[in-house]
């Protein structure tokens, strides 16, 4: 082994001279001038990086120094000190005859000088040039390079690894020590565009040309500031209709589609998709959509449009507010009250106990979960290694007693009673005489004293839940999953939970701070995502809106509402309070958490193809019974205009839909299919290309 690496060392000396020679001919440019390529040696279990193309080619050939293969990891640097004003040399060391059988790289001049004095190391060359962090942070137009250290079995076995993908870096623990940011890799314009596209996938219902250019120009922080400030979209006002009286009420209503419009969520679905496709407050809508899948109600039980309208608007209005406010508003919502039986839940009688339904799901699904969590979202274990329940049946019954005494708000002009008729127009109303006045067991050993008012009991119980240490990791993890990746590292969860616990100003539960932290986290940002478990299957709604927004589709929303059902996500009609899919679902045969894969099966897979087929090759006409309907029409002219050059067409789709990660094999397969379309039929070429990209497995997964 040492023989091989010694030969490599000699080769390095040669190529270093060559590189210096070549660099003299390169003009200084903003685009990075060197690519650092990572290799892996399985028998050594060592990683090695080189910025010298000749050395990489030599390793690829495997003759002079066999045993090294590319890992796929590569990042950018400068080939010469003159390529960029802030570039500094990176010293490359190899273990001496008494030192490690591996390489070490440093951009820190002091560290370089220090290691040069260490007899265990031998200075080899300036490996490449790169930017360095200031106070641990990398500047604009660069991405951090993280170093981890594998101690190995002994001195000769030690090895360092240098990665730009934070997720991969964190997965090196615990067998490696994570040493943090050591360099700042310059980003190419392609990589910066890729990051802009990825941010838009995470923060909107899909990137489009205008937003990609905008984010590229202003940067992610400024874009997020704009999004936090954008005016909230509102669902259209929908009139009160009497529950369960469709047969008698609708004949008296002027709307001939009264049943569809007011006794189903059809109009609400349309509005959701219209606004997802075209409104400016994209991030607010995305967060609201995420929250609506954590604090779930369903049109299967609450099918009055005006009621669900209020419930869904609640999440938009509070998407950047405080989570305690959301817990309170949801608890008092008549829609939730109806859905989970808190409405008209009375204090115990001789034969009837308070209803446990809302009490149980408030804890299990909306706030803390069934197991005690560590700050990083992993399960706490007791001394015997068993998970620790976060509450017991007595606690459920305690909360069930707290939540007694609320009824529907009184209808205007109707005399209030202790059990008002169904009405979703305002928060539920307290009826103190129906409230249990005993002491109640809450979380963390707290007991509410007997004799409190119904309002005080509720507020103190919500606060008791909100202050539980599980809430930050439990809710933070799910928001990460809904916005960025289904399988976040514990470190990512811990960073977000810390922001949930304190936004920096001492405020707990500030969702604006949480969302900003999620989207600016190194696991969300960064130019290159190579971790084999990173990302998430595009859930049906986002799959559809992503394709539609990329094509600047004009739509009244009807088509998307219809298609969502066959794709497994009938919008606003989740099958139960457990949402369309669970946050814990594992990709089959793996340990990778991939929630949206619970909706992936042969039936929905066929429907994804058919959705794209109709969108692109079909005609989606306006519904005659819907006033103002326009149907759904994607704009394909821009793509048709460049379809004469199939390679250019694919470059554009690659950048917009796949952040320029389309593999050559995929590109080749699509180019072959495009060649079968007559060159005179540019529109069909454009449609074919879009169809193949958006139905591809590569596009199904956002990463």
């Amino acid at each position, binding site marked *: 082994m040492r023989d091989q690496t010694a030969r490599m060392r000699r080769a390095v000396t040669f190529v270093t001279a060559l590189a210096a020679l070549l660099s003299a001919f390169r003009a200084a440019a903003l685009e990075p001038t060197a690519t650092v390529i990572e290799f892996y040696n399985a028998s050594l279990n060592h990683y090695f990086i080189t910025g010298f193309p000749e050395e990489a080619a030599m390793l690829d050939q495997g003759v002079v120094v066999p045993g090294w293969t590319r890992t796929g990891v590569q990042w950018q640097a400068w080939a010469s000190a003159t390529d960029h004003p802030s570039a500094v040399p990176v010293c490359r060391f190899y273990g001496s005859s008494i030192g490690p059988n591996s390489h070490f790289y440093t951009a820190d001049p002091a560290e370089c000088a220090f290691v040069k004095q260490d007899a265990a190391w031998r200075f080899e060359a300036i490996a490449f040039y790169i930017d360095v962090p200031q106070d641990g942070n990398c500047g604009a137009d660069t991405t951090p390079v993280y170093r981890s250290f594998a101690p190995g079995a002994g001195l000769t076995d030690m090895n360092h690894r240098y990665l730009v993908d934070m997720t991969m870096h964190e997965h090196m623990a615990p067998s490696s020590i994570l040493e943090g940011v050591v360099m700042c890799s310059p980003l190419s314009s392609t990589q910066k565009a890729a990051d802009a596209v990825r941010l838009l996938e995470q923060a909107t219902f899909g990137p489009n040309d205008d937003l990609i250019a905008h984010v590229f120009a202003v940067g992610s922080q400024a874009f997020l500031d704009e999004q936090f400030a954008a005016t909230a979209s509102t669902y259209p006002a929908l009139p009160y209709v009497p529950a369960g009286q469709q047969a008698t009420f609708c004949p008296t209503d002027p709307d001939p589609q009264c049943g569809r419009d007011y006794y189903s969520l059809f109009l609400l679905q349309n509005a959701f998709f219209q606004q997802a496709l075209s409104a400016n407050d994209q991030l607010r809508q995305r967060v609201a959509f995420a929250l609506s899948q954590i604090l779930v109600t369903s049109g299967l039980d609450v099918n009055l449009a005006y009621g669900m309208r209020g419930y869904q608007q609640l999440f938009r209005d509070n998407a950047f507010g405080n989570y305690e406010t959301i817990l309170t508003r949801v608890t008092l919502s008549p829609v939730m009250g109806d859905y989970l039986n808190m409405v008209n839940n009375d204090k115990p009688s001789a034969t009837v106990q308070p209803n446990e339904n809302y009490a149980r799901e408030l804890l299990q699904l909306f706030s803390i979960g069934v197991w005690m969590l560590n700050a990083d979202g992993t399960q706490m274990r007791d001394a015997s290694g068993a998970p620790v329940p976060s509450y017991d049946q007595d606690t459920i019954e305690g909360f069930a007693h707290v939540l007694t005494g609320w009824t529907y708000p009184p209808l205007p002009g109707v005399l209030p009673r202790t059990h008002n008729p169904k009405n979703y127009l305002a928060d539920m109303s307290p009826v103190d005489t129906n409230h249990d006045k005993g002491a109640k067991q809450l979380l963390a050993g707290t007991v509410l004293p007997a004799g409190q008012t119904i309002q005080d009991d509720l507020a103190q119980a919500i606060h008791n839940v909100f202050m539980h240490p599980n809430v930050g990791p439990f809710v933070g993890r799910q928001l990460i999953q809904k916005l960025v990746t289904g399988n976040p590292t514990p470190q990512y969860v811990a960073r977000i939970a810390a922001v949930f616990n304190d936004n920096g100003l001492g405020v707990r539960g500030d969702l604006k701070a949480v969302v900003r932290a999620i989207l600016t986290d190194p696991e969300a940002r960064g130019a290159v995502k190579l971790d084999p*478990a990173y990302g998430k299957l595009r859930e049906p709604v986002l799959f559809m809106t992503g394709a539609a927004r990329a094509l600047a589709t004009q739509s009244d929303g009807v088509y998307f509402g219809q298609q969502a059902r066959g794709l497994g996500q009938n919008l606003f009609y989740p099958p139960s309070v457990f949402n369309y899919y669970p946050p814990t679902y594992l990709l089959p*045969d793996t340990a990778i958490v991939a929630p949206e894969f619970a909706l992936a099966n042969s039936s929905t897979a066929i429907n994804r193809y058919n959705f794209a087929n109709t969108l692109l090759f079909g005609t989606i006409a306006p519904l005659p019974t819907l006033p103002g309907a326009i149907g759904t029409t994607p704009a394909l002219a821009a793509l048709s205009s460049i379809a004469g050059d199939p390679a250019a067409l694919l470059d554009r789709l690659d950048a917009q839909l796949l952040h320029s990660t389309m593999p050559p094999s995929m590109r080749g397969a699509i180019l072959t299919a495009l060649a079968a379309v007559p060159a005179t039929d540019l529109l069909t070429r454009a449609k074919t290309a879009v169809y*193949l990209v958006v139905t591809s497995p590569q596009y199904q997964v956002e*990463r």
Partner: protein
Amino acid sequence: MKAIAIPRRAFLRQLGALSALGLASRLDLIRFAAEASAQTQPDYKALVCVFLFGGNDGNNTVIPLDAAGYGQYAAIRPATSGINLSQASLLPIQPIDSASPFGLHPSLTDLQMLFNQNRMAILANVGTLLQPTTQAQYAAGLRPLSLYSHADQQAQWQSAVSSAASGTGWGGRIADKVAPMNAASGFPVVTSLDGAVLFTSGASAIPLSIPVTGSFALSGYSGSTAAAARMNAVQQLLAQASGNALVDGASDIGAQALDLSATVNPILANANSTIAPLFTNLNTSTANQLYQVAKLIEARAATGAARQIFFVQLGSFDTHGDQLNRQQNLFEELSPALKAFYDATVALGVASQVTTFTLSDFGRTLQPASGGGTDHAWGSHHFIIGGAVQGGKIYGRYPQLSLGGPDDAEKEGRWLPSCSVDQYGATLARWFGVATTDLDSVFSNLASFSTADLGFMG
């Protein structure tokens, strides 16, 4: 983390080669399906799981009808509770070996008929268990993880693992054992009408998922040169390895979908199915699901399946409120659908080769909850239907209907199960053809119980 590697790619490749036979030859096969089936597949068997999501209230499903037993029921669920079923409304059944009669919920007319014809058995008070459990052991903390939680108890009913999270379900694990019997065709053992559910998840193959209604056909392929080239590209993109586990997962599912669509869609779209009239007047989700199942059984010669496990579901059993109306509506959907399906198996000549059974999250508290409903509990009663079932009997042990009584784990009537999901599943698995020596690997906790055979399959 599971130890088993991913054999799916190989499986899918094999399947792809088979479907290269083409659609036309498949249609030919279907045409002669009925004729061929009798001779070629004498060994055919199917298990049909009907999952009642939300936790069916067994206490209003099977009720003692004798004066003393009903009296206990009515004392805790009086008419004023809002969830009382009157004694006169119950459908009487007289189980073999039982001194006392029982009554079924008044909407279970069809199931009463099947029970009386000895085509249906009742398994009383079955539930998730770590081992046979006494009240004292429960009080000391011996219980399944997250008892009374929907998600966890659904998972435990489907996995038969109550001591930890499981990545596979017992339907999927049975499928792994019998998969060699389908080797000739490569057709998946498991078909789900509810997408990817834990029950169907095994190690050997991705379950087939079919729609409850509507087409399972890929649209947009007209036969033009350009369309053929496009399909060729689609197939290539599905076959390309990506380096990302999620992308590869999506590829596997997509490839399977395209492969099986060509075979299965003509079966589901078959307007001439001989059993269609049995389902004509039952336009419910449950009936539609069971009709799809029946059509696949009818076409077993075309699919080449010798063993099939189906997953069918009906939701909204979480009757915390308005239970009388809600459970009635649900049973009015469930009962005729199960009867139509049983009749279909009779018409297809496979009544004794198809066994249908119910599962559910848990039972519900005997004590009423505010709002005319009930809360989450534990053990409950289930139905097993088919020609091979030793019907007309109640298996397991019916609990004593008493709050805080000998069968109550708490004080609201949450029954300590008299037998376990493991035993329930193992009894079905043995009939299905899983070797006795394999039962312990399918049901890893089976040895904790006194018997692996509850007797209802003879």
